[in-house]
């Protein structure tokens, strides 16, 4: 071996030359080719890859939108309309980007649900999970600032309401709000900095996604049974098995995405955002984008402003400590008959909050939202810590291979040792 060169086994001489000096091909082969992956994934395990694709779509469309967008209060709205009317396929770019945000949240919510149901947050994947929560927070910030850019009525008033939340902080609150705005109201400086940050944050997300994936490749993936693979009979190489399976999920996702973009491009938006921003006219109901509604409902469920802001941020912050709140050593809810029921109730509470967040703040929605918000926190703070001690889990299977291959017994591993020859 030449001094310090990586011993590459790539056949192509040019690629081998590169790989010997910068072993990216070996790395990709190791992390995405032969990477041992539990053999029992269901389709819920597609959503991580889908989120990755979605991020790339957002960045790609966003870069081209930015070439045609003008971040100035007097021109932003009309520049977006010029994209819709005069830029070649500008309408497609913008509708993909706008609905891509909704798709991103749908995908990530399902991805988070997958983690909650199969206990993917538990040891040894705590840091992996926490990085995921960081990505989620960054996504929310990015989506919020992106929604401000078209400078429609909901852009302006949404920005006003959300930035004003910080004024609830004691002592420094009002100063922070002035600092965020770059002035004494939401105005051109606000739009400029939101545009700058909206372009920056996706790349920060990309960086954290890299860490998320790096951490995943240390611990390996969880799986629907929540038990660790015990040997090669429990895993398959990532390629071609999961590249093939992810392709199926990816196309199903594209179908949903296409239906949204081509037939219902404005279904998830708000009509008021096609009215140019007017600081003198307040819309009848200021509603955030649908993916913020559960948290908006928690905010409004508390009669005190500071308390509402604290609970809203707390509802996400609590996810950071979830790995330690859940005291049960059993990961998958399949083997936790009692916790499973409480988790499904939590899911219902989440949807109830989403529903109430879109309703005007009046009865009966306020009371319903309060009950749902209380249960949201009760699940994490009381039920999960207690159930770890009280619940008797079902017996765990011996290994991943046994319940998958009916009858168990010795495994025909010959097929798996040379997976590349099959396709």
């Amino acid at each position, binding site marked *: 071996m030449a001094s310090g060169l990586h011993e590459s086994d790539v056949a192509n001489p040019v690629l081998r030359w590169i790989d010997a000096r910068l072993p990216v091909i070996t790395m990709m082969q190791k992390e995405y080719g032969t990477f041992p992956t539990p053999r029992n994934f269901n*389709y819920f395990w597609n959503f991580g890859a889908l989120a990755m694709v979605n991020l790339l779509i957002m960045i790609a469309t966003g870069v081209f939108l930015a070439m045609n967008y003008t971040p100035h209060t007097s021109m932003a709205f009309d520049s977006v309309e010029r994209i819709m009317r005069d830029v070649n396929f500008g309408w497609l770019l913008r509708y993909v980007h706008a609905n891509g945000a909704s798709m991103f949240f749908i995908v990530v919510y399902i991805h988070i649900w997958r983690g909650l149901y199969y206990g993917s947050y538990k040891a040894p994947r705590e840091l992996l999970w926490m990085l995921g929560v960081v990505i989620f927070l960054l996504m929310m910030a990015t989506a919020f600032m992106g929604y401000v850019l078209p400078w429609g009525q909901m852009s302006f008033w949404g920005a006003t309401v959300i930035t004003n939340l910080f004024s609830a902080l004691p002592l420094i609150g009002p100063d922070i709000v002035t600092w965020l705005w770059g002035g004494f109201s939401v105005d051109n400086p606000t739009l400029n900095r939101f545009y700058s940050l909206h372009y920056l944050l996706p790349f920060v997300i990309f960086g954290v996604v890299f860490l998320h994936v790096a951490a995943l490749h240390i611990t390996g993936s969880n799986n629907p049974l929540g038990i660790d693979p015990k040997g090669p009979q429990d895993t398959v190489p990532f390629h071609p098995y999961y590249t093939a399976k992810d392709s199926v999920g990816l*196309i199903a996702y594209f179908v949903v995405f296409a239906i949204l973009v081509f037939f219902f491009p*404005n279904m998830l938006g708000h*009509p008021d955002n*096609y009215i140019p921003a007017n600081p003198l006219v307040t819309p009848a109901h200021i509603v955030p984008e649908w993916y913020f509604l559960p948290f908006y409902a928690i905010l409004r469920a508390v009669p005190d402003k500071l308390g509402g802001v604290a609970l809203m941020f707390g509802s996400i912050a609590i996810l950071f400590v979830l790995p330690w709140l859940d005291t049960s050593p059993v990961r998958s809810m399949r083997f936790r008959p009692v916790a499973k029921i409480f988790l499904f109730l939590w899911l219902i509470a989440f949807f109830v909050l989403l529903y109430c967040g879109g*309703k005007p703040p009046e009865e009966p929605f306020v009371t319903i939202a309060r009950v749902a918000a209380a249960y949201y926190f009760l699940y994490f703070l009381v039920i999960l810590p207690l159930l770890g001690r009280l619940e008797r889990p079902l017996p765990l299977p011996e290994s991943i291979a046994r319940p998958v291959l009916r009858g168990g017994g010795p495994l025909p591993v010959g097929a798996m040792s040379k997976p590349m020859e099959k396709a």
Partner: protein
Amino acid sequence: MPVKATLKAVVVAAGLLAGAGLGTLPARAASGGEALPHVNFSFDGLFGHFDRASAQRGFQVYKEVCANCHSMHLLSYRNLRELGLSEAQVRGIAASVQVKDGPNDEGEMFERPGRPSDRFHSPFPNEQAARAANNGALPPDLSLITKAREGGAQYVHALLTGYEDPPPGVTLMPGMNYNKYFAGHQIAMAQPLSSDGQVEYTDGTQPTVEQMVRDVSQFLTWAAEPELEQRKAMGVKMVIFLVILGGFAYAIKRKVWSDVH
């Protein structure tokens, strides 16, 4: 097992979508009051397209009635080519308005006949002038009106046909009109299309109020979503392509996994 899991995933995704729809739609409808009467438009549905004759008549209605107060500043005269008007017709329509241009080499602003590249001529020079001429109310720009109102073209149709006498007990503010589909029911705009034959159509279509309202709704939808036809046609092809591709992907997945299951 995978089938069950797929179903679960689909149900969750559908639930999120439906939840989003439920969460936002009724809230918006709540401000509008009465349910809108349903009208079938040619641009509805997966294969929707614009009825160009109707949209051209709608443009005539806009030009002769609405344009007295409402601007459409996002549209240019050249856009009318997409409605089937000829180059000469578009030039004629554009030239019928005087556009302020300049400064010229002497530094003077001057007026010239409009060109196809000009934006639609606005009836008022600014918001204050529009309000002053309309009893303090601002006639909204109509470029995006069907996207900027819950219900879209259905709402425009309902609003234009929703004028009636105020019910007993309701006192209108001075200069206001009663409209059962308008939020709060008091609208500053007087009924704009009130009698049959208000606009003289040249293609033989009877200009009833209902016909004029439908035509102008068609025109305004085109104005707000000129890409609609291209978008839906592309969508049909895209979905068919993806479904076929998905079939192949699933077949490959089955083949790849056949030795594991």
